[in-house]
């Protein structure tokens, strides 16, 4: 507990910046990572909906405050029941 002074934020900034930097670095370095992820996402989603595999866009974006995985997956048809 701190009564007399505000917690300095610089360490927190360091940790947050590092996490974002490494999201980028690691995704770029391991070239296969996004491809593997793409394959597994297709597998998982295909159980429930029919998708257009050629139109899938998967991106890892990071900006000043957060990192996010953005997937744009066009659905062709929703399956009636799990096959």
């Amino acid at each position, binding site marked *: 507990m701190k009564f007399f002074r505000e917690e300095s934020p*610089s*360490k927190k900034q360091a*940790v947050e910046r*590092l996490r974002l*930097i490494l999201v980028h670095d690691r995704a770029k*370095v*391991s070239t296969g990572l996004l491809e593997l992820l793409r394959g597994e996402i297709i597998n998982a989603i295909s159980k429930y909906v029919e998708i257009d595999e050629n139109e899938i866009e998967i991106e890892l974006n990071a900006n000043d405050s957060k990192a996010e995985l953005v997937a744009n997956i066009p659905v062709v048809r929703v399956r009636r029941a799990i096959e």
Partner: protein
Amino acid sequence: MAGRVVVVTSGKGGVGKTTTVANIGTGLALRHKKVVMIDADIGLRNLDVVMGLENRIVYDLVDVAEKTCRSINKALIKDKRLSNLFLLPAAQTRNKDAITPDQMIEIVEGLKEEFDYILIDCPAGIERGFNNAVAAATEAIVVTTPEVSAVRDADRIIGLLQEKEIYEPLLVLNRLRPEMVRKGDMMDVDDINDILAIKLLGIVPDDEEIIISTNKGEPAVLNSHSKAGEAFRNIVKRLEGEEVPFMPINGETGLFGKFLKLMHGK
């Protein structure tokens, strides 16, 4: 039994690789291990200076690789203080292309039978020099400081070590400043462990004694009063498989803490 071949690396320069090699090498030798330290930083040799052995160099790593000197033993410099500690210095007037990974492997193979430990001081960077230094190693120590740039480079190096099939590198967190950690102005060991997720070998506090010891050419591990020296002695024990608790990072605790310390006569 063949010796352990450990490369000490960091990616970023200036985080304390050479100091780490000198202290771990000396610390292992103090425990009666037969140790050779190889300075793989061709063109920018420094390990000789940190060890205080700069005046004894006759042959160097490139001479051994090119077989200019008749046997590898001719190039090994015996430490001033410990008879079971040796240095194979880097060439100063050549560059990183002067040796190849295959030559490095051959040299290390020649030393393995005779030594318990072969420590390789890796140059900064991720190119030729790194590839040479890592080629013969089966274990790695990654040195970083609690700064964003150093940790980022350490992360990259951990990835590159994986490509070289060194999957479990050990981390040395160097130059930790307890007072800054306490104020929240420096990442602490938990933050860095969390990010890098490799096994921690040791935490070395920032210590003026390191500069003094480098001035003298005497590794701090020999100095019983140096905090960094104590940290390196613990690192050596852990490297040897002993369970040693990590030193408490006790920064000053403000006025009250100072008062308490006065009461205890410290």
